[in-house]
């Protein structure tokens, strides 16, 4: 009885805890927070204190004095720093959960499918400490599939490839469960780093990760253009010989070549998942296709390359960037139908 009264007074929260960004969805309001998963910490007399979280901390990266560190508590899809991750979750929940409007909400958080029980408990404890009434967990590929509108509870195979900032999760789902999942160490950040390394080695120029990300978004492609060098973009950075800033024009062909390796690893991951899929479910996937979600799915021509490599239709979800958090939110809202995909 008390629980149902509290349920009316509080608003449930869905959290997608990503390597690059953390998103929070509140029922009736949509996505209310989308901030970088970054925490700036300061060490005073040996004691660590949180200085800034999210957007504010992200602006500090590369600009901090020695005693301040801007760190990403999530790395390659797993929690690299439990304490800092906990502080970040607390900060975000409190930021969204204006105390006058929220009365101890229920919180559902997506976790990488490969996360350990210790990591899961740490996330739960952090959410409870931030004032959550009850905390549910949901595996990321499941959340992405629900967010993409796949029939995860039906006796029908669905395949989702969720390409996030740190990793790509490839999963086959049926009857509300994950039949097969595989985490591939390829994400948006690795693609950015690959571009930085390429420009450094081939053009002798140092660029930042933000510039690399812009290049990827503007002319990034999973395959080389059929004719010529394709689109081009101007890149500014520091010349490693003269030490002064300079400009450079890079082409789509060059960037596609630099990204060939992460794209190849992704294709291998998908092929392996298909090989391990039970035949009946594989037949369903041939009909319904592979669904791409996450920011990495927006890499140019990735769907075409995957289709050519696997022979299976590939589609990009309608809202690939927020699929994960939408799925977490839907699972929380439709508890009766989707309750079995949540971990209490």
């Amino acid at each position, binding site marked *: 009885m008390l629980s149902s009264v509290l349920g009316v007074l509080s608003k449930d929260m869905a959290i997608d805890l990503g390597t690059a960004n953390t998103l929070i969805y509140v029922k009736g309001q949509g996505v209310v927070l989308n901030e970088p998963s970054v925490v700036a910490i300061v060490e005073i007399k040996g004691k660590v204190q949180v200085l800034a979280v999210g957007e504010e901390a992200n602006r500090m990266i590369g600009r901090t004095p020695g005693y301040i560190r801007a760190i990403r508590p999530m790395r390659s899809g797993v929690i690299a720093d439990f304490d800092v991750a906990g502080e970040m979750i607390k900060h975000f929940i409190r930021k969204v959960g204006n105390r006058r409007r929220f009365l101890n909400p229920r919180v559902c958080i997506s976790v990488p499918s490969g996360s350990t029980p210790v990591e899961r408990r740490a996330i739960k404890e952090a959410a409870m400490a931030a004032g959550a009434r009850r905390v549910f967990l949901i595996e990321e590929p499941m959340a992405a599939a629900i967010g993409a509108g796949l029939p995860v509870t039906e006796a029908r195979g669905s395949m989702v490839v969720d390409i996030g900032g740190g990793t790509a999760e490839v999963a086959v789902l049926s009857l509300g469960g994950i039949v097969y999942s595989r985490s591939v160490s390829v994400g948006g950040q690795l693609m950015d*780093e690959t571009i*930085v*390394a390429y420009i*450094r080695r*081939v053009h*002798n120029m140092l660029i930042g*990760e933000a510039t690399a990300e812009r290049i990827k978004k503007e002319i990034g492609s999973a395959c080389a253009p059929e004719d010529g060098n394709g689109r081009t973009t101007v890149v500014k950075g520091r010349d*490693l010989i003269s030490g002064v800033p300079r400009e450079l024009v890079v082409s789509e062909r060059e960037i596609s*070549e630099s990204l060939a*390796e992460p794209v190849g690893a992704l294709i291998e991951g998908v092929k392996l998942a298909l090989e391990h899929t039970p035949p009946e479910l594989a037949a369903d996937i041939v009909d319904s296709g592979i669904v791409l979600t996450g920011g990495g799915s927006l890499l140019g021509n990735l769907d075409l390359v995957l289709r050519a490599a696997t022979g299976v239709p590939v589609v990009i979800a309608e809202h690939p960037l927020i699929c994960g958090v939408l799925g977490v939110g839907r699972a929380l809202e439709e508890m009766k139908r989707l309750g079995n995909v949540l971990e209490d």
Partner: protein
Amino acid sequence: MEARPRRDIRTHVASGRERLERLAALVETLPPATFTLSRWYGQGRGCAVGWAAAGDPWFQAQGLRLEGDGSLKDCRPVYGEKTDWQAVQGFFDLSFEDVARLFVPAAYDGEMQPHPRRMATRIRRFLAASRAAPADLPASA
């Protein structure tokens, strides 16, 4: 027998030419799948200089090392105070033009993954064509 103090043990300082010969020998042992011209070194792949600096004790004893190898974007070869292509120039005692002739993708028809043997052959041809240079004098850091 009395052990010699560490300061008395001297490393043979090879010439730029000898270092290039060693590099050609190293490159042809690399599996093609681990060879790329798109980065110095990282994620189990690298270019000739990257592999020499990352895992070959002879090159490391000559003063070539790899810095930032925990991160793909920061990884670079270092020789003395010099990094990246300047380190390559200094270590092998080459001009920038010669470095470009041997190690950049343009020298291999823009290919990012030429066969390692192709690079080894190119280095040996370069050495044969330039008997006098690079100088047989010890390279300085």
